């Protein structure tokens, strides 16, 4: 029997079938050893493969043209090999469910080893709430949540605000210890989105073995959570609230917002994003998801110089159209098979059949552009095609173009702009300019998603994957593509976003396919989207902000843009099949600058000080280095009578000795450091001259 089985396998190979080596190996073992009585297989072959398998009596789970997943009893494996048209059979080694896969890609462990875990950073999450009972957010049995503002339930609002209910750390701890869950803190995360985001951002489960199996990045950080009702005004209040707490704690702050929409000019000039740009600053950073519309027809563009232009789209909640600054338009009209709204002039508004059309002049918008707005509410028109006619277009700029950008709530444009491919592994086109409107704000960090895992083991014993969605290292098919509406480089970075394993809210429901096998099933769940990529990035950014508490968003983006990392194409996958990020630190509309990499920040000889003005002083590398136990530190002061300090820090950032603290004249200075009383290891010496500073690394080796 065994001989016939191998004969069939060898025959299959000879006739061009590919059989997963893992399957060959496991099928050679006696049944009792493997304990496997059936295989869950991915089969690739001719079109209508699923039908053939079904007719042959196989249990077909998923049928996608020339691919099918099928459960095959071990005893019927030979029958499967006999079916004509099968090109390959894949078994797939069970993936190990690790969130660390996503987080560690950014080399956060290097920061952790240096003692940077986020303890000196305040993190903030504006989302669907949090399961505050989840072990990832507890430390020694007590909550890591400093404040929790539930904007959706009125009660006792935070000071200065008139709505929602605020809970502080003491109240949360009282609830945790009360034995009556939610008797004091009534907030719950029924959607699970916020809990999942929080896990990737700051989560740390002390009880999971090995300890780092399911950690986020900022594992030592405290957090302020705002459960929001998604309204723009409330989100601004939430940002203001969290930054206010950071002010009172005198800590840098990183907020993650995994929300968005396509309404607006996509250039960061709308009032919401202008307000955001004003709220962030040195030590105050916001990280946002880029959006999930990378392969959706949510954007239209044309720039031909014409007097009349038509834009066709299906029924959607809203469409906004933006005419190039300086150019003009006389009116807009909207037609569909059973009605029309005609000749809406500037400052005009007309309505019919539950559809509203507005045309607002350039003076109404901070970006100086004329904007048209269409709102649709009558779902009886859901099957209609609408034609928006722009009449009286004028190239007042005389630059031989009239740029017209439009964005819609859903994928409705009949002629979306600029379709391109990321490789044949994907089943759909990608579109530029599909970033969410609020991912286009000038001073937020905008995060796209790449694939770090393309199949996953589930609690029901099956291994799942999304067909036609790329492979590991590629961009996630949903990740929104840049640039912004005014052609600025966004997204800034990418992070792992496909099939992220993170905290599961006990109040959210998940199908078995999105829950990991035991022992993780009860507390963890899979999810994907740029919503998931954003907190993965935010956690690493929190560690950077702990190292550089005064960095502005611009300084942070400067680091991210110069120290990014690429993604790697899997073995056997060609360029035409999958585009990956091969050139980190150069921006492209799909991957931004690449993935975050903390390596340079936490290991470079000279910790970067972007504001450093070299003409103020020069700090030289110590000699000798490594040293035992004495080394010389040399520096040159340019200006007379400058206040100079030279301090020594250990690798945890703790001050161990101050060598100089006085006013010094210009010129070359020498100082000696004696490490006789200190242990072998890495030390930093930091020179401050006036308000400028620099630091370098040295190694004491005994």
């Amino acid at each position, binding site marked *: 029997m065994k001989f016939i089985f191998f004969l069939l396998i060898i025959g299959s190979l000879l006739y061009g079938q590919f059989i997963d080596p893992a399957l060959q190996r496991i099928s050679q073992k006696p049944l009792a050893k493997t304990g496997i009585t059936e295989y869950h297989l991915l089969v690739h072959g001719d079109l209508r493969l699923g039908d053939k398998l079904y007719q042959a009596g196989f249990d077909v789970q998923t049928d996608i043209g020339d691919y099918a997943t099928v459960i095959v009893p071990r005893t019927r494996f030979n029958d499967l090999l006999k079916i004509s048209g099968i090109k390959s059979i894949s078994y797939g080694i069970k993936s190990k469910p690790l969130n660390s896969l996503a987080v560690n890609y950014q080399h956060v462990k290097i920061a952790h080893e240096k003692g940077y875990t986020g303890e000196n950073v305040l993190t903030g999450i504006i989302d*669907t709430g949090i399961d505050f009972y989840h072990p990832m957010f507890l430390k020694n049995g007590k909550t890591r949540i400093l404040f929790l503002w539930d904007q959706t339930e009125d009660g006792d609002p935070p000071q*200065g*605000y*008139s*709505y929602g209910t605020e809970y502080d750390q003491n109240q949360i701890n009282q609830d945790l210890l009360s034995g009556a869950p939610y008797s004091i803190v009534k907030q719950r995360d029924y*959607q699970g*989105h916020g809990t999942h985001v929080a896990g990737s951002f700051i989560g740390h489960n002390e009880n999971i073995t090995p300890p780092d199996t399911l950690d986020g990045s900022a594992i030592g950080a405290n957090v302020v959570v705002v459960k929001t*009702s*998604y*309204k*723009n*005004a*409330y*989100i*601004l*209040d939430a940002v*203001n609230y969290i930054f206010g707490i950071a002010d009172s704690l005198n800590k840098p702050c990183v907020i993650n917002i*995994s*929300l*968005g*929409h396509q*309404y*607006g000019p996509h250039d960061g000039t*709308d*009032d*919401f994003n*202008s*307000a955001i740009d*004003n*709220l962030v600053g040195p030590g105050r950073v916001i990280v946002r*998801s880029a*959006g*999930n519309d990378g392969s959706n027809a949510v954007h239209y563009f044309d720039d031909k110089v014409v007097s009349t232009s038509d834009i066709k789209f299906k029924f959607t909640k809203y469409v906004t159209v933006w005419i190039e600054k300086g150019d003009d338009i006389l009116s807009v009209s909207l037609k569909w098979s059973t009605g029309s709204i005609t000749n809406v002039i500037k400052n005009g*508004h007309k309505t019919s059949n539950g559809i*509203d059309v*507005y045309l*607002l002049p350039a*003076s*109404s*918008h*901070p970006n100086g552009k004329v904007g048209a*707005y269409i*709102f649709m509410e009558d779902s009886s028109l859901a099957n209609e095609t609408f034609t928006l006619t722009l009449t009286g277009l004028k190239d007042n700029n005389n630059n031989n173009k009239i740029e017209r950008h439009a964005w819609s709530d859903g994928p409705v444009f009949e002629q979306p702009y600029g379709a391109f491919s990321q490789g044949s592994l994907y089943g759909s086109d990608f579109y530029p300019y599909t970033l*969410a409107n*609020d991912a286009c704000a000038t001073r937020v960090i905008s995060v796209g998603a790449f694939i770090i895992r393309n199949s996953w083991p589930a609690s029901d014993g099956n291994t799942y994957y999304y067909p036609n969605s790329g492979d590991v290292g590629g961009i996630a098919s949903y990740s929104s593509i840049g640039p912004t509406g005014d052609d600025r480089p966004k997204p800034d970075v990418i992070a792992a976003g496909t099939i992220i394993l993170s905290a599961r809210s006990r109040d959210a429901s998940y199908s078995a396919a999105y829950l990991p096998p035991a022992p993780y099933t009860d507390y963890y769940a899979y999810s994907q*989207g*740029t*919503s998931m990529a*954003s907190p993965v990035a935010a956690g690493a950014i929190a560690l950077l902000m702990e190292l550089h508490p005064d960095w502005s968003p611009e300084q942070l983006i400067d680091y991210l843009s110069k120290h990014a990392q690429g993604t790697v194409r899997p073995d056997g996958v060609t360029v035409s099949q999958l585009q990956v990020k091969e050139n980190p630190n150069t921006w492209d509309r799909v991957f931004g600058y690449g993935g975050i990499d903390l390596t340079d920040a936490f290991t470079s000889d000279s910790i970067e000080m972007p504001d450093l003005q070299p003409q103020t002083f020069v700090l030289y590398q110590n000699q000798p280095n490594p040293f035992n136990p004495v080394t010389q530190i040399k520096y040159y002061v340019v200006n007379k009578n400058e206040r100079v300090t030279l301090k020594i820090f250990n690798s945890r950032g703790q001050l161990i000795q101050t060598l100089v603290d006085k006013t010094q004249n210009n010129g070359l200075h020498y100082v000696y450091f004696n490490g006789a009383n200190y242990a072998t290891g890495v030390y930093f010496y930091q020179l401050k001259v006036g308000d400028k500073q620099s630091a370098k690394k040295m190694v004491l080796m005994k």
Partner: protein
Amino acid sequence: MRKFFLVLSLFFLIVGCVATSKPLYEKHVVSLDPRVDKWLVQTVKDSVDTLAIVVVSNAPLTDYSFLKKLKRNYYTGHVTKIQLKALLKDERIVRINSGEQKLH
């Protein structure tokens, strides 16, 4: 002579009626997000239903207890139709916006 004065009076009357290039009074218009405008039209209960708004002004707004200052001249609040109408008359207010987001 009488005819001359009649024609002259008619001339001055006509000239007096010709509009000058500068209007004597320009009505203040707040730039309104169409979503706010739609809500204003559709809302029935003037003093009950509220809308969450973002307000941009050209001067500090300290006299509205229902507005919270964010930074500079950016304010948030949730307002009734009556309160919104009051804001629309305020010459310090430049723009009023609304809107909401969804999960990614």
